[in-house]
């Protein structure tokens, strides 16, 4: 692993950006929803899927990507969007439903589109696989060494789209990397209840492509494995499938009573916080000082604060603007 101190600290900081973002979003989400929780009230209404705990996947993977590379995310998209480099202001404003948001308030939390950073996502499970193939196909046709990454949850690996896209990508040797976040749950349904084999990366054999499982929720482990896949894709050698074990700290969505989840599960996961572990590692290996770490974390917090302030201060879109943008002209 040939990462510089700057790069490692950038990763550390990005993980904190994500964590602060998700934690602050959790708080903002509850505004206007107490004492009586109503999903449609407050400054941030609708469903809210947070990725705290899952930072290693997004950050470890996207560290390899350039602006020209495409990322397609999921219904739980903030960590991917942040890791891909989307402007925090526009991202936050979109989730607050503001005119200054990525989609002028039309998309919302599950539908973040950034043409400049080539990011999109979808609330439909399994929907990330096909468009990532298309982006990769376009790169190939245009003779670029761009790659595309499709992220998905372990629950999504049982959708038909997974199979079709993997076959197509393998058949056409497309520069695409399929990354499965195995957080053990698809809402209340565990992986064991939904998936006939324990390890989705083994499904790669059905398409004749490399399949790797990362068994630790560790940013550097992800970085290493995804790095090989990205290099391979850039060299024109085709797709890879990677599954990463990761941890969902919050409920499936905010407000999830989580009755299906063993009581001690979340505390255990949180005790193994991947950001704290990474920080400790940087300290122990003498790569960074506590001051470095604190500065990174503080900078992340400042960024998030600024983005939330921007979002809150931004105006709502004009009601009639709902009628615009069905088609471009």
């Amino acid at each position, binding site marked *: 692993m040939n990462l510089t101190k700057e790069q490692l600290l950038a990763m550390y900081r990005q993980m904190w950006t994500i964590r602060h973002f998700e934690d602050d979003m959790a708080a903002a989400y509850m505004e206007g929803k107490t004492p009586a*929780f*109503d*999903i*449609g*009230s407050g400054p941030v*209404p*609708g*469903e809210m899927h947070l990725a705290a705990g899952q930072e290693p996947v997004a950050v470890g993977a996207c560290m390899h990507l350039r602006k020209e590379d495409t990322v397609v995310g999921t219904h739980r998209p903030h960590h991917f969007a942040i890791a891909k480099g989307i402007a925090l202001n526009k991202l936050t404003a*979109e989730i607050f*439903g*503001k005119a200054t*948001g990525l*989609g002028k*308030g*039309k*998309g*919302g*939390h*599950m*539908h973040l589109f950034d043409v400049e950073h080539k990011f999109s996502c*979808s*609330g*439909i*499970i*399994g929907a990330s696989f096909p468009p990532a193939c298309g982006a990769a196909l376009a790169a190939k046709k245009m003779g670029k060494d761009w790659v595309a990454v499709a992220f998905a949850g372990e*629950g*999504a690996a*049982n*959708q*038909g*789209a997974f199979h079709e896209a993997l076959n197509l990508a393998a058949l056409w040797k497309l520069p695409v990397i399929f990354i499965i976040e195995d957080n053990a749950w*698809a*809402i*209340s*349904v565990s992986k064991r*209840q*939904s*998936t006939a084999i324990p390890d989705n990366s083994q499904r790669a054999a059905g398409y004749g492509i490399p399949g790797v499982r990362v068994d630790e929720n560790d940013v550097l482990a992800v970085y290493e494995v995804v790095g090989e896949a990205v290099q391979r894709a850039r060299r024109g050698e085709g797709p890879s499938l990677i599954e990463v074990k990761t941890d969902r700290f919050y409920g499936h969505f905010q*407000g999830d009573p989580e*009755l*299906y989840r063993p009581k001690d599960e979340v505390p255990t996961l949180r005790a193994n916080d991947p950001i704290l572990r990474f920080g400790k590692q940087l300290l122990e290996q003498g790569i960074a000082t506590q001051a470095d770490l604190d500065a990174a974390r503080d900078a992340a917090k400042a960024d998030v604060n600024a983005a939330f302030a921007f979002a809150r201060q931004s105006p*709502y*879109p*004009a*009601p*009639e*603007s*709902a*009628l615009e943008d*069905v088609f471009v002209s």
Partner: protein
Amino acid sequence: MTNERELTMAKAIAEAIDQEMERDERVFVMGEDVGIYGGIFGATQGLYEKYGAERVMDTPISETAFIGAATGAAAEGMRPIVELMFVDFFGVCMDQIYNHLAKNTYMSGGHARYPVVLTTAIGGGYNDAAQHSQCLYGLFAHVPGLKIVVPSTAYDAKGLMISAIRDDNPVMYFFHKGLMGLGWMKYHPRSVTPTPEAPYTIPFGKADVKRAGRDVTIVSLAMMVHRSLDAAEELAKEGIEAEVIDLRTLVPLDRETVVNSVKKTHRLLVVDEDYHSFGMTGEIAAIVAEEALDYLDAPIRRLAVPDTPIPYSRPLEQFVLPGAERIAETVRTMMG
């Protein structure tokens, strides 16, 4: 009715399923999070605890497989109730629904039976955006072979669900999230109704006149029934008496009640939370233009989502969803 216990629509649906599962061993439930979770919108609450994982089955996120499996199990004599969590997701499994479940009976010359109830959640109003807020029942009513049920109250929901389970044909049963009476989502209080404990059925193809009136007929279903009733209350203060018809089922469709009402009121407004064009409002308007043209004293009017995806942001979503005020205003312009 005053002494009867009141239920939310979610509880009424779960109770109907429970009673039919008790009555008939062949009835079972499949879907995502229908087990311990009790269904994301509570339509299967309590069933897992009572009947266990064999009869209340959580599935992988494989709608094509498990909805197609419902068809296959029904062919063997089982009576599956299968949940598509949000109707918005139909695109991943529509082939199994409309090319197979819906058509097999016809293609078999009426020999094969598929007693499947396909439940699904519809509706917006809580800012869940373009992929989680649609109604889309018009699209399913357009393709032949599915009975289409869309209740608006707990009372209707229970009776229609029992009818659906006992029907030997595929029934698609749409419940509006904002009528389920959930603890975590605003719901229209009028959806909570007295609901008898003993099982009862409500026949398909019988619209319900939820409010009688002489001046204008408002045809609607699901949440828009209640918005129309709210509007009707406002209008009554101004001396305008609206008749509010709840279609309850789109297939079969109760043309007679609609047409007779228009013959009486001479005015028709169709209100829908589905998309405006090529859907429910057009069909109802067309039927009246065919069968009661000479009775109309004003042009037919329609209110629906104006052919945009459902936007996320609150002011945008509120703009596209028909509300009581806009309904009342539209009626006023028709009275002039």
